[in-house]
Protein backbone atom coordinates (compact mmCIF):
# COMPACT_ATOMS: atom_id res chain seq x y z
CA UNK A 1 0.00 0.00 0.00
CA UNK A 2 2.71 2.44 0.98
CA UNK A 3 4.62 1.57 -2.17
CA UNK A 4 1.51 2.27 -4.21
CA UNK A 5 1.06 5.62 -2.50
CA UNK A 6 4.62 6.70 -3.24
CA UNK A 7 4.36 5.49 -6.84
CA UNK A 8 1.23 7.49 -7.56
CA UNK A 9 2.60 10.59 -5.84
CA UNK A 10 5.74 10.32 -7.91
CA UNK A 11 3.98 9.73 -11.21
CA UNK A 12 1.52 12.58 -10.70
CA UNK A 13 4.42 14.97 -10.64
CA UNK A 14 6.43 13.45 -13.42
CA UNK A 15 3.74 13.06 -16.05
CA UNK A 16 3.40 16.82 -16.05
CA UNK A 17 5.08 18.72 -18.87
CA UNK A 18 8.09 20.87 -18.06
CA UNK A 19 10.81 20.00 -15.61
CA UNK A 20 11.68 21.74 -12.37
CA UNK A 21 15.02 22.76 -13.84
CA UNK A 22 13.21 24.69 -16.58
CA UNK A 23 11.35 26.53 -13.89
CA UNK A 24 14.51 27.50 -12.07
CA UNK A 25 15.94 28.71 -15.33
CA UNK A 26 12.85 30.77 -16.03
CA UNK A 27 13.43 32.64 -12.82
CA UNK A 28 16.94 33.43 -13.93
CA UNK A 29 17.04 33.86 -17.71
CA UNK A 30 20.80 34.34 -17.70
CA UNK A 31 21.38 30.73 -16.67
CA UNK A 32 23.60 29.00 -19.21
CA UNK A 33 22.90 25.52 -20.60
CA UNK A 34 25.78 24.23 -18.49
CA UNK A 35 24.24 25.65 -15.34
CA UNK A 36 20.97 24.04 -16.28
CA UNK A 37 22.66 20.67 -16.77
CA UNK A 38 24.38 21.08 -13.43
CA UNK A 39 21.05 21.79 -11.77
CA UNK A 40 19.48 18.76 -13.37
CA UNK A 41 22.34 16.62 -12.16
CA UNK A 42 22.08 18.17 -8.71
CA UNK A 43 18.43 17.19 -8.36
CA UNK A 44 19.06 13.86 -10.08
CA UNK A 45 16.75 14.84 -12.94
CA UNK A 46 19.13 13.61 -15.63
CA UNK A 47 18.63 9.98 -14.64
CA UNK A 48 15.88 7.74 -16.04
CA UNK A 49 12.50 7.88 -14.33
CA UNK A 50 12.62 4.57 -12.47
CA UNK A 51 16.09 5.38 -11.06
CA UNK A 52 14.78 8.74 -9.87
CA UNK A 53 11.87 6.98 -8.24
CA UNK A 54 14.03 4.43 -6.43
CA UNK A 55 16.35 7.19 -5.29
CA UNK A 56 13.44 9.19 -3.92
CA UNK A 57 11.99 6.08 -2.29
CA UNK A 58 15.28 5.37 -0.56
CA UNK A 59 15.24 8.88 0.86
CA UNK A 60 11.67 8.91 2.13
CA UNK A 61 12.14 5.51 3.76
CA UNK A 62 14.09 7.45 6.39
CA UNK A 63 11.56 10.30 6.24
CA UNK A 64 13.78 12.55 4.17
CA UNK A 65 11.63 14.24 1.56
CA UNK A 66 14.45 16.39 0.27
CA UNK A 67 14.66 20.16 0.25
CA UNK A 68 12.03 22.54 -0.95
CA UNK A 69 12.61 24.42 -4.22
CA UNK A 70 11.44 27.64 -2.62
CA UNK A 71 14.08 30.31 -1.92
CA UNK A 72 14.42 29.32 1.74
CA UNK A 73 15.41 25.80 0.62
CA UNK A 74 14.30 24.21 3.89
CA UNK A 75 13.67 20.53 4.43
CA UNK A 76 10.28 19.40 3.15
CA UNK A 77 9.68 17.27 6.24
CA UNK A 78 10.27 20.26 8.55
CA UNK A 79 7.96 22.47 6.54
CA UNK A 80 5.16 19.94 6.63
CA UNK A 81 5.61 19.05 10.29
CA UNK A 82 5.38 22.67 11.42
CA UNK A 83 2.12 23.10 9.49
CA UNK A 84 0.54 19.82 10.53
CA UNK A 85 -0.67 20.60 14.11
CA UNK A 86 -3.06 23.37 13.04
CA UNK A 87 -4.68 21.26 10.34
CA UNK A 88 -4.94 18.18 12.53
CA UNK A 89 -6.37 20.30 15.38
CA UNK A 90 -9.04 21.83 13.16
CA UNK A 91 -9.95 18.48 11.65
CA UNK A 92 -10.16 16.74 15.02
CA UNK A 93 -12.29 19.57 16.41
CA UNK A 94 -14.60 19.45 13.43
CA UNK A 95 -14.89 15.67 13.71
CA UNK A 96 -15.89 16.06 17.37
CA UNK A 97 -18.40 18.72 16.33
CA UNK A 98 -19.75 16.45 13.59
CA UNK A 99 -20.21 13.68 16.11
CA UNK A 100 -21.73 15.90 18.79
CA UNK A 101 -24.34 17.36 16.45
CA UNK A 102 -24.99 14.57 13.96
CA UNK A 103 -25.46 11.81 16.51
CA UNK A 104 -28.45 13.33 18.35
CA UNK A 105 -30.02 14.52 15.07
CA UNK A 106 -29.65 11.10 13.48
CA UNK A 107 -30.92 9.19 16.51
CA UNK A 108 -33.87 11.47 17.16
CA UNK A 109 -35.00 11.52 13.56
CA UNK A 110 -34.88 7.73 13.40
CA UNK A 111 -36.71 7.26 16.70
CA UNK A 112 -39.35 9.77 15.71
CA UNK A 113 -39.42 8.75 12.05
CA UNK A 114 -41.71 10.88 9.85
CA UNK A 115 -42.15 13.43 12.62
CA UNK A 116 -41.74 17.15 12.06
CA UNK A 117 -38.20 16.89 13.42
CA UNK A 118 -37.38 14.12 10.97
CA UNK A 119 -38.68 16.14 8.04
CA UNK A 120 -36.81 19.20 9.22
CA UNK A 121 -33.57 17.27 9.50
CA UNK A 122 -34.07 15.72 6.06
CA UNK A 123 -34.31 19.18 4.56
CA UNK A 124 -31.22 20.21 6.49
CA UNK A 125 -29.36 17.15 5.24
CA UNK A 126 -30.16 17.83 1.58
CA UNK A 127 -29.15 21.45 1.96
CA UNK A 128 -25.97 20.45 3.77
CA UNK A 129 -24.98 18.09 0.99
CA UNK A 130 -25.48 20.70 -1.66
CA UNK A 131 -24.01 23.68 0.17
CA UNK A 132 -20.57 24.58 -1.22
CA UNK A 133 -18.25 24.89 1.77
CA UNK A 134 -16.43 27.91 0.37
CA UNK A 135 -19.73 29.68 -0.10
CA UNK A 136 -20.66 28.93 3.50
CA UNK A 137 -17.29 30.37 4.50
CA UNK A 138 -18.01 33.53 2.52
CA UNK A 139 -21.48 33.94 4.03
CA UNK A 140 -20.21 33.39 7.57
CA UNK A 141 -17.39 35.86 6.99
CA UNK A 142 -19.90 38.37 5.75
CA UNK A 143 -22.30 37.84 8.66
CA UNK A 144 -19.97 37.46 11.64
CA UNK A 145 -16.91 39.24 10.34
CA UNK A 146 -18.26 42.18 8.40
CA UNK A 147 -21.88 42.87 9.40
CA UNK A 148 -21.73 41.92 13.06
CA UNK A 149 -17.99 42.26 13.54
CA UNK A 150 -17.93 39.54 16.23
CA UNK A 151 -15.27 37.27 14.83
CA UNK A 152 -12.00 37.76 12.99
CA UNK A 153 -12.08 36.53 9.39
CA UNK A 154 -8.51 35.61 8.71
CA UNK A 155 -5.39 34.19 10.25
CA UNK A 156 -4.90 32.30 13.45
CA UNK A 157 -4.08 35.03 15.92
CA UNK A 158 -4.65 38.73 16.43
CA UNK A 159 -1.85 41.23 15.73
CA UNK A 160 -1.41 41.84 19.48
CA UNK A 161 -1.49 38.13 20.26
CA UNK A 162 1.97 37.95 21.84
CA UNK A 163 1.23 40.67 24.38
CA UNK A 164 -1.84 38.87 25.74
CA UNK A 165 -2.09 36.74 28.86
CA UNK A 166 -2.29 32.97 28.45
CA UNK A 167 -6.05 33.00 29.00
CA UNK A 168 -6.59 35.76 26.48
CA UNK A 169 -4.32 33.97 24.01
CA UNK A 170 -6.42 30.82 24.23
CA UNK A 171 -9.56 32.87 23.74
CA UNK A 172 -7.94 34.55 20.77
CA UNK A 173 -7.15 31.18 19.16
CA UNK A 174 -10.66 29.97 19.86
CA UNK A 175 -12.19 33.02 18.20
CA UNK A 176 -10.08 32.50 15.12
CA UNK A 177 -10.91 28.81 14.98
CA UNK A 178 -14.71 28.97 15.30
CA UNK A 179 -15.49 29.78 11.67
CA UNK A 180 -12.98 27.38 10.07
CA UNK A 181 -14.15 24.51 12.27
CA UNK A 182 -17.79 25.28 11.51
CA UNK A 183 -17.12 25.38 7.79
CA UNK A 184 -15.15 22.17 7.74
CA UNK A 185 -17.71 20.34 9.88
CA UNK A 186 -20.83 21.51 8.04
CA UNK A 187 -20.93 19.03 5.18
CA UNK A 188 -19.92 16.23 7.50
CA UNK A 189 -22.78 16.94 9.89
CA UNK A 190 -25.31 16.50 7.11
CA UNK A 191 -23.76 13.29 5.83
CA UNK A 192 -23.21 11.79 9.25
CA UNK A 193 -26.69 12.47 10.61
CA UNK A 194 -28.19 10.92 7.49
CA UNK A 195 -25.99 7.91 7.96
CA UNK A 196 -26.77 7.52 11.66
CA UNK A 197 -30.46 7.76 10.84
CA UNK A 198 -30.47 5.03 8.21
CA UNK A 199 -28.19 2.85 10.29
CA UNK A 200 -30.53 3.21 13.28
CA UNK A 201 -33.60 2.48 11.16
CA UNK A 202 -31.98 -0.71 9.98
CA UNK A 203 -31.07 -1.83 13.50
CA UNK A 204 -34.48 -1.02 14.97
CA UNK A 205 -36.06 -3.59 12.67
CA UNK A 206 -33.86 -6.40 13.96
CA UNK A 207 -35.20 -9.25 16.05
CA UNK A 208 -33.05 -8.54 19.08
CA UNK A 209 -34.63 -5.13 19.43
CA UNK A 210 -38.04 -6.77 19.52
CA UNK A 211 -36.69 -9.19 22.12
CA UNK A 212 -35.35 -6.35 24.24
CA UNK A 213 -38.74 -4.65 24.11
CA UNK A 214 -40.53 -7.92 24.81
CA UNK A 215 -38.58 -8.56 27.96
CA UNK A 216 -39.87 -5.25 29.29
CA UNK A 217 -36.93 -2.90 28.99
CA UNK A 218 -37.74 0.79 28.93
CA UNK A 219 -37.76 2.38 25.53
CA UNK A 220 -34.69 4.49 26.29
CA UNK A 221 -32.71 1.45 27.42
CA UNK A 222 -33.64 -0.33 24.22
CA UNK A 223 -32.64 2.63 22.12
CA UNK A 224 -29.43 3.65 23.78
CA UNK A 225 -28.04 0.36 25.04
CA UNK A 226 -29.17 -2.02 22.35
CA UNK A 227 -29.92 -0.09 19.20
CA UNK A 228 -27.46 2.79 19.23
CA UNK A 229 -24.45 0.66 20.02
CA UNK A 230 -25.07 -1.55 17.03
CA UNK A 231 -25.98 1.35 14.80
CA UNK A 232 -22.71 3.10 15.58
CA UNK A 233 -20.52 0.36 14.16
CA UNK A 234 -20.82 1.36 10.51
CA UNK A 235 -20.59 5.00 11.55
CA UNK A 236 -17.09 4.41 12.90
CA UNK A 237 -15.98 3.15 9.50
CA UNK A 238 -17.45 6.23 7.90
CA UNK A 239 -15.40 8.44 10.22
CA UNK A 240 -12.25 6.74 8.99
CA UNK A 241 -13.35 7.12 5.39
CA UNK A 242 -14.02 10.83 5.81
CA UNK A 243 -10.40 11.64 6.62
CA UNK A 244 -9.22 12.26 3.04
CA UNK A 245 -12.20 14.53 2.44
CA UNK A 246 -11.42 16.56 5.55
CA UNK A 247 -7.74 16.93 4.66
CA UNK A 248 -8.59 17.85 1.08
CA UNK A 249 -11.20 20.31 2.30
CA UNK A 250 -8.60 22.01 4.46
CA UNK A 251 -7.14 23.50 1.27
CA UNK A 252 -10.36 25.43 0.78
CA UNK A 253 -10.95 26.81 4.24
CA UNK A 254 -7.29 27.42 5.01
CA UNK A 255 -6.94 29.43 1.81
CA UNK A 256 -10.11 31.41 2.51
CA UNK A 257 -9.36 32.11 6.16
CA UNK A 258 -5.59 32.32 5.51
CA UNK A 259 -4.74 29.80 8.17
CA UNK A 260 -1.13 28.60 8.06
CA UNK A 261 -1.83 24.86 7.90
CA UNK A 262 -1.11 21.96 5.57
CA UNK A 263 -3.85 22.91 3.13
CA UNK A 264 -2.40 26.35 2.64
CA UNK A 265 1.10 24.93 2.34
CA UNK A 266 -0.09 22.50 -0.29
CA UNK A 267 -1.79 25.28 -2.17
CA UNK A 268 1.34 27.40 -2.11
CA UNK A 269 3.56 24.52 -3.14
CA UNK A 270 1.29 23.64 -6.05
CA UNK A 271 1.18 27.24 -7.19
CA UNK A 272 4.97 27.60 -7.09
CA UNK A 273 5.48 24.10 -8.53
CA UNK A 274 7.62 23.09 -5.60
CA UNK A 275 8.00 19.47 -6.71
CA UNK A 276 9.61 17.88 -3.61
CA UNK A 277 7.06 19.62 -1.40
CA UNK A 278 4.10 18.51 -3.54
CA UNK A 279 5.29 14.90 -3.57
CA UNK A 280 5.93 14.98 0.16
CA UNK A 281 2.49 16.45 0.87
CA UNK A 282 0.75 13.85 -1.29
CA UNK A 283 2.52 11.03 0.53
CA UNK A 284 1.85 12.49 3.97
CA UNK A 285 -1.79 13.23 3.14
CA UNK A 286 -2.28 9.62 2.08
CA UNK A 287 -0.44 8.32 5.14
CA UNK A 288 -2.69 10.42 7.40
CA UNK A 289 -5.64 8.75 5.68
CA UNK A 290 -4.13 5.34 6.34
CA UNK A 291 -3.68 6.26 10.00
CA UNK A 292 -7.30 7.41 10.13
CA UNK A 293 -8.41 4.07 8.70
CA UNK A 294 -6.31 2.11 11.16
CA UNK A 295 -7.71 4.14 14.08
CA UNK A 296 -11.21 3.45 12.77
CA UNK A 297 -10.46 -0.28 12.59
CA UNK A 298 -9.12 -0.29 16.13
CA UNK A 299 -12.12 1.53 17.56
CA UNK A 300 -14.37 -0.75 15.56
CA UNK A 301 -12.77 -3.74 17.24
CA UNK A 302 -13.17 -2.08 20.63
CA UNK A 303 -16.84 -1.32 20.06
CA UNK A 304 -17.69 -4.73 18.66
CA UNK A 305 -16.63 -7.70 20.78
CA UNK A 306 -17.31 -10.05 17.87
CA UNK A 307 -14.30 -8.69 16.04
CA UNK A 308 -11.04 -9.76 17.58
CA UNK A 309 -7.60 -9.44 16.13
CA UNK A 310 -6.21 -12.88 15.66
Amino acid sequence: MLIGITMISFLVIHIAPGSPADLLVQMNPKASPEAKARLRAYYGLDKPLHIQYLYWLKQIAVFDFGSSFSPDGRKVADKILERMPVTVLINVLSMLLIFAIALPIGVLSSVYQRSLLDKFSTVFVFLGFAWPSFWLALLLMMLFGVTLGWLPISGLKAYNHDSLSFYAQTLDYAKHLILPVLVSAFGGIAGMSRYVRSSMLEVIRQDYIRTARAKGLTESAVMYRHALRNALLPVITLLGLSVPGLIGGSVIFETIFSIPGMGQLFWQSAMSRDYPLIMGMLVIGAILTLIGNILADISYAMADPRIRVR
Partner: protein
Amino acid sequence: MLKTYSEFWYRFKKDKLAVAGSIIVICLFVLSFIAPLVAPYDPNAIDARHVLTPPGTAHLFGTDDLGRDVFSRILFGARISLKVGFFSVGISVLIGIMIGALAGYYGTWVDTIIMRFVDTMLCFPTFFLIIALIALFEPSIWIIMIVIGATNWMGVARLVRAEILSLKQREFILAARAAGASDLRIIFSHILPNALAPVLVYATLGVAAAILIESSLSFLGIGVQPPTPSWGNILTVGKDNIEIAWWLSLFPGLAILITVLGYNLLGEGIRDSLDPRLR
Protein backbone atom coordinates in the same frame (compact mmCIF):
# COMPACT_ATOMS: atom_id res chain seq x y z
CA MET B 1 -35.35 -5.70 -7.99
CA LEU B 2 -36.94 -3.84 -10.84
CA LYS B 3 -39.65 -5.51 -12.84
CA THR B 4 -40.70 -2.95 -15.40
CA TYR B 5 -40.05 0.62 -16.30
CA SER B 6 -43.66 1.50 -15.66
CA GLU B 7 -43.24 0.33 -12.09
CA PHE B 8 -40.21 2.61 -11.80
CA TRP B 9 -42.11 5.56 -13.22
CA TYR B 10 -45.00 4.92 -10.89
CA ARG B 11 -42.76 5.14 -7.83
CA PHE B 12 -40.70 8.00 -9.22
CA LYS B 13 -43.76 10.16 -9.89
CA LYS B 14 -45.02 9.65 -6.35
CA ASP B 15 -41.72 10.86 -4.89
CA LYS B 16 -42.20 14.60 -4.54
CA LEU B 17 -38.53 15.35 -3.89
CA ALA B 18 -37.44 13.40 -6.97
CA VAL B 19 -39.94 15.27 -9.14
CA ALA B 20 -38.71 18.57 -7.72
CA GLY B 21 -35.14 17.52 -8.53
CA SER B 22 -35.99 16.65 -12.12
CA ILE B 23 -37.81 19.94 -12.58
CA ILE B 24 -34.73 21.82 -11.36
CA VAL B 25 -32.46 19.85 -13.68
CA ILE B 26 -34.74 20.33 -16.70
CA CYS B 27 -35.02 24.07 -16.00
CA LEU B 28 -31.22 24.32 -15.83
CA PHE B 29 -30.88 22.55 -19.16
CA VAL B 30 -33.39 24.85 -20.82
CA LEU B 31 -31.86 27.97 -19.25
CA SER B 32 -28.37 27.15 -20.34
CA PHE B 33 -29.49 26.45 -23.90
CA ILE B 34 -31.42 29.68 -24.22
CA ALA B 35 -28.97 31.74 -22.15
CA PRO B 36 -28.03 34.03 -25.07
CA LEU B 37 -31.70 34.77 -25.67
CA VAL B 38 -32.78 35.57 -22.13
CA ALA B 39 -29.64 37.23 -20.81
CA PRO B 40 -30.37 40.97 -20.61
CA TYR B 41 -26.71 41.92 -21.23
CA ASP B 42 -23.58 40.52 -22.80
CA PRO B 43 -21.95 38.64 -19.88
CA ASN B 44 -18.56 40.15 -20.71
CA ALA B 45 -19.67 43.70 -21.50
CA ILE B 46 -17.67 46.01 -19.28
CA ASP B 47 -19.51 49.13 -18.14
CA ALA B 48 -17.25 51.47 -16.23
CA ARG B 49 -20.13 53.78 -15.27
CA HIS B 50 -22.04 51.08 -13.38
CA VAL B 51 -19.37 49.36 -11.33
CA LEU B 52 -20.67 47.41 -8.31
CA THR B 53 -24.27 48.53 -8.70
CA PRO B 54 -26.60 46.91 -6.14
CA PRO B 55 -29.46 44.77 -7.48
CA GLY B 56 -32.23 46.83 -9.02
CA THR B 57 -34.51 47.05 -12.03
CA ALA B 58 -31.68 47.68 -14.51
CA HIS B 59 -29.45 44.91 -13.14
CA LEU B 60 -31.48 42.17 -11.48
CA PHE B 61 -28.56 40.75 -9.48
CA GLY B 62 -26.40 43.88 -9.56
CA THR B 63 -23.06 44.31 -11.32
CA ASP B 64 -19.52 43.23 -10.51
CA ASP B 65 -16.28 45.18 -10.13
CA LEU B 66 -16.06 45.75 -13.91
CA GLY B 67 -19.72 46.70 -14.28
CA ARG B 68 -20.70 43.38 -15.85
CA ASP B 69 -24.26 42.20 -15.28
CA VAL B 70 -24.21 39.43 -12.65
CA PHE B 71 -27.52 37.92 -13.76
CA SER B 72 -26.23 37.39 -17.30
CA ARG B 73 -22.95 35.99 -15.99
CA ILE B 74 -24.79 33.50 -13.79
CA LEU B 75 -26.91 32.40 -16.76
CA PHE B 76 -23.81 31.78 -18.84
CA GLY B 77 -22.12 30.18 -15.85
CA ALA B 78 -24.86 27.55 -15.92
CA ARG B 79 -23.52 26.41 -19.28
CA ILE B 80 -20.03 25.93 -17.89
CA SER B 81 -21.14 23.96 -14.87
CA LEU B 82 -23.40 21.79 -17.00
CA LYS B 83 -20.55 21.07 -19.40
CA VAL B 84 -18.06 20.30 -16.66
CA GLY B 85 -20.56 18.18 -14.76
CA PHE B 86 -21.47 15.98 -17.71
CA PHE B 87 -18.07 15.63 -19.35
CA SER B 88 -16.16 14.83 -16.19
CA VAL B 89 -18.77 12.33 -15.06
CA GLY B 90 -18.72 10.81 -18.53
CA ILE B 91 -14.96 10.38 -18.25
CA SER B 92 -15.08 8.90 -14.77
CA VAL B 93 -17.91 6.51 -15.68
CA LEU B 94 -16.02 5.33 -18.76
CA ILE B 95 -12.80 4.72 -16.83
CA GLY B 96 -14.72 3.15 -13.96
CA ILE B 97 -16.65 0.76 -16.19
CA MET B 98 -13.54 -0.37 -18.05
CA ILE B 99 -11.43 -0.89 -14.94
CA GLY B 100 -14.26 -2.43 -12.93
CA ALA B 101 -15.18 -4.80 -15.76
CA LEU B 102 -11.57 -5.84 -16.20
CA ALA B 103 -11.18 -6.60 -12.50
CA GLY B 104 -14.52 -8.30 -12.02
CA TYR B 105 -14.55 -10.35 -15.19
CA TYR B 106 -11.00 -11.66 -15.24
CA GLY B 107 -10.63 -12.09 -11.49
CA THR B 108 -7.48 -13.66 -9.99
CA TRP B 109 -4.33 -11.57 -10.10
CA VAL B 110 -5.78 -8.94 -12.47
CA ASP B 111 -8.47 -8.28 -9.89
CA THR B 112 -5.98 -8.16 -7.01
CA ILE B 113 -3.71 -5.65 -8.71
CA ILE B 114 -6.54 -3.42 -9.91
CA MET B 115 -8.36 -3.36 -6.59
CA ARG B 116 -5.13 -2.59 -4.77
CA PHE B 117 -4.68 0.32 -7.13
CA VAL B 118 -8.23 1.49 -6.44
CA ASP B 119 -7.67 1.29 -2.68
CA THR B 120 -4.47 3.28 -3.02
CA MET B 121 -6.16 5.96 -5.09
CA LEU B 122 -8.85 6.24 -2.42
CA CYS B 123 -6.17 7.00 0.18
CA PHE B 124 -5.29 10.31 -1.40
CA PRO B 125 -7.22 13.40 -0.46
CA THR B 126 -8.91 13.85 -3.85
CA PHE B 127 -8.64 17.59 -3.64
CA PHE B 128 -4.86 17.37 -3.21
CA LEU B 129 -4.55 15.22 -6.32
CA ILE B 130 -6.77 17.52 -8.34
CA ILE B 131 -4.91 20.66 -7.33
CA ALA B 132 -1.51 19.09 -7.96
CA LEU B 133 -2.51 17.93 -11.44
CA ILE B 134 -4.19 21.18 -12.45
CA ALA B 135 -1.37 23.32 -11.12
CA LEU B 136 1.14 21.37 -13.17
CA PHE B 137 -0.81 21.81 -16.38
CA GLU B 138 -2.23 25.09 -17.60
CA PRO B 139 -5.70 25.49 -16.09
CA SER B 140 -8.35 25.28 -18.78
CA ILE B 141 -11.87 23.91 -18.83
CA TRP B 142 -10.73 20.74 -20.61
CA ILE B 143 -7.98 20.04 -18.10
CA ILE B 144 -10.47 20.52 -15.27
CA MET B 145 -12.93 18.07 -16.75
CA ILE B 146 -10.25 15.46 -17.41
CA VAL B 147 -8.70 15.82 -13.97
CA ILE B 148 -12.04 15.65 -12.14
CA GLY B 149 -12.96 12.60 -14.20
CA ALA B 150 -9.59 10.93 -13.66
CA THR B 151 -9.78 11.29 -9.87
CA ASN B 152 -13.38 10.20 -9.32
CA TRP B 153 -13.80 6.90 -11.15
CA MET B 154 -13.07 4.61 -8.20
CA GLY B 155 -16.66 4.38 -7.01
CA VAL B 156 -17.93 3.31 -10.44
CA ALA B 157 -15.13 0.76 -10.75
CA ARG B 158 -16.10 -0.85 -7.45
CA LEU B 159 -19.77 -0.81 -8.34
CA VAL B 160 -19.26 -2.44 -11.74
CA ARG B 161 -16.84 -5.00 -10.34
CA ALA B 162 -19.28 -6.05 -7.60
CA GLU B 163 -22.10 -6.32 -10.11
CA ILE B 164 -20.02 -8.45 -12.47
CA LEU B 165 -18.85 -10.72 -9.69
CA SER B 166 -22.44 -11.44 -8.73
CA LEU B 167 -23.60 -11.98 -12.33
CA LYS B 168 -20.62 -13.91 -13.66
CA GLN B 169 -21.79 -17.32 -12.49
CA ARG B 170 -25.45 -16.91 -13.41
CA GLU B 171 -26.96 -19.26 -15.98
CA PHE B 172 -27.55 -16.70 -18.72
CA ILE B 173 -23.87 -15.80 -18.74
CA LEU B 174 -22.87 -19.45 -18.86
CA ALA B 175 -25.36 -19.91 -21.69
CA ALA B 176 -23.88 -17.00 -23.59
CA ARG B 177 -20.42 -18.43 -23.15
CA ALA B 178 -21.57 -21.88 -24.24
CA ALA B 179 -23.04 -20.26 -27.34
CA GLY B 180 -19.56 -19.02 -28.14
CA ALA B 181 -19.89 -15.31 -27.30
CA SER B 182 -16.59 -13.48 -26.88
CA ASP B 183 -15.51 -11.92 -23.58
CA LEU B 184 -16.17 -8.42 -24.88
CA ARG B 185 -19.62 -9.37 -26.07
CA ILE B 186 -20.47 -10.97 -22.74
CA ILE B 187 -19.27 -7.95 -20.80
CA PHE B 188 -20.91 -5.30 -22.94
CA SER B 189 -24.16 -6.86 -24.03
CA HIS B 190 -24.96 -9.27 -21.23
CA ILE B 191 -23.44 -7.99 -18.00
CA LEU B 192 -23.24 -4.20 -18.26
CA PRO B 193 -26.93 -3.60 -19.06
CA ASN B 194 -27.66 -5.20 -15.71
CA ALA B 195 -25.24 -2.87 -13.95
CA LEU B 196 -26.67 0.21 -15.63
CA ALA B 197 -29.12 1.26 -12.93
CA PRO B 198 -26.65 1.70 -10.05
CA VAL B 199 -24.17 3.38 -12.39
CA LEU B 200 -26.87 5.81 -13.47
CA VAL B 201 -27.57 6.72 -9.84
CA TYR B 202 -23.88 7.15 -9.19
CA ALA B 203 -23.47 9.30 -12.29
CA THR B 204 -26.34 11.63 -11.36
CA LEU B 205 -24.89 12.19 -7.89
CA GLY B 206 -21.47 12.50 -9.57
CA VAL B 207 -22.63 15.43 -11.70
CA ALA B 208 -23.52 17.26 -8.50
CA ALA B 209 -20.12 16.47 -7.00
CA ALA B 210 -18.28 17.55 -10.15
CA ILE B 211 -20.12 20.87 -10.23
CA LEU B 212 -19.16 21.45 -6.59
CA ILE B 213 -15.51 20.65 -7.32
CA GLU B 214 -15.43 22.84 -10.42
CA SER B 215 -16.89 25.80 -8.54
CA SER B 216 -14.39 25.36 -5.68
CA LEU B 217 -11.51 25.26 -8.16
CA SER B 218 -12.77 28.30 -10.03
CA PHE B 219 -13.24 30.06 -6.72
CA LEU B 220 -9.64 29.34 -5.79
CA GLY B 221 -8.57 30.66 -9.18
CA ILE B 222 -7.36 27.51 -10.89
CA GLY B 223 -10.63 26.53 -12.48
CA VAL B 224 -12.44 28.27 -15.29
CA GLN B 225 -10.40 31.36 -16.06
CA PRO B 226 -11.96 34.82 -16.26
CA PRO B 227 -13.37 36.47 -18.30
CA THR B 228 -15.33 33.25 -18.98
CA PRO B 229 -18.09 33.42 -16.37
CA SER B 230 -18.35 30.56 -13.91
CA TRP B 231 -20.22 30.53 -10.63
CA GLY B 232 -16.99 29.91 -8.78
CA ASN B 233 -15.06 32.81 -10.25
CA ILE B 234 -17.94 35.25 -9.72
CA LEU B 235 -17.70 34.28 -6.03
CA THR B 236 -13.98 35.10 -6.08
CA VAL B 237 -14.90 38.65 -7.04
CA GLY B 238 -17.46 38.47 -4.26
CA LYS B 239 -14.77 37.59 -1.74
CA ASP B 240 -12.59 40.49 -2.90
CA ASN B 241 -15.49 42.88 -2.41
CA ILE B 242 -17.00 41.16 0.61
CA GLU B 243 -17.33 44.36 2.58
CA ILE B 244 -19.23 46.33 -0.04
CA ALA B 245 -21.04 43.98 -2.42
CA TRP B 246 -23.08 41.24 -0.77
CA TRP B 247 -24.93 40.43 -4.01
CA LEU B 248 -21.71 39.13 -5.60
CA SER B 249 -21.41 36.52 -2.87
CA LEU B 250 -25.07 35.64 -2.52
CA PHE B 251 -26.48 34.87 -5.99
CA PRO B 252 -23.78 32.65 -7.56
CA GLY B 253 -23.71 30.59 -4.37
CA LEU B 254 -27.48 30.18 -4.52
CA ALA B 255 -27.15 29.03 -8.12
CA ILE B 256 -24.64 26.35 -7.12
CA LEU B 257 -26.77 25.29 -4.16
CA ILE B 258 -29.94 24.90 -6.22
CA THR B 259 -28.16 23.05 -9.03
CA VAL B 260 -26.37 20.60 -6.76
CA LEU B 261 -29.58 20.12 -4.79
CA GLY B 262 -31.44 19.32 -7.99
CA TYR B 263 -29.00 16.62 -9.10
CA ASN B 264 -28.82 15.12 -5.61
CA LEU B 265 -32.62 14.93 -5.31
CA LEU B 266 -32.87 13.40 -8.76
CA GLY B 267 -30.17 10.84 -8.03
CA GLU B 268 -31.66 9.80 -4.71
CA GLY B 269 -35.09 9.70 -6.29
CA ILE B 270 -33.90 7.33 -9.00
CA ARG B 271 -32.23 5.15 -6.40
CA ASP B 272 -35.28 4.96 -4.17
CA SER B 273 -37.57 4.20 -7.10
CA LEU B 274 -35.27 1.44 -8.31
CA ASP B 275 -35.10 -0.18 -4.92
CA PRO B 276 -37.77 0.94 -2.46
CA ARG B 277 -36.27 -1.15 0.33
CA LEU B 278 -33.54 1.43 0.78
CA ARG B 279 -35.87 4.16 1.99
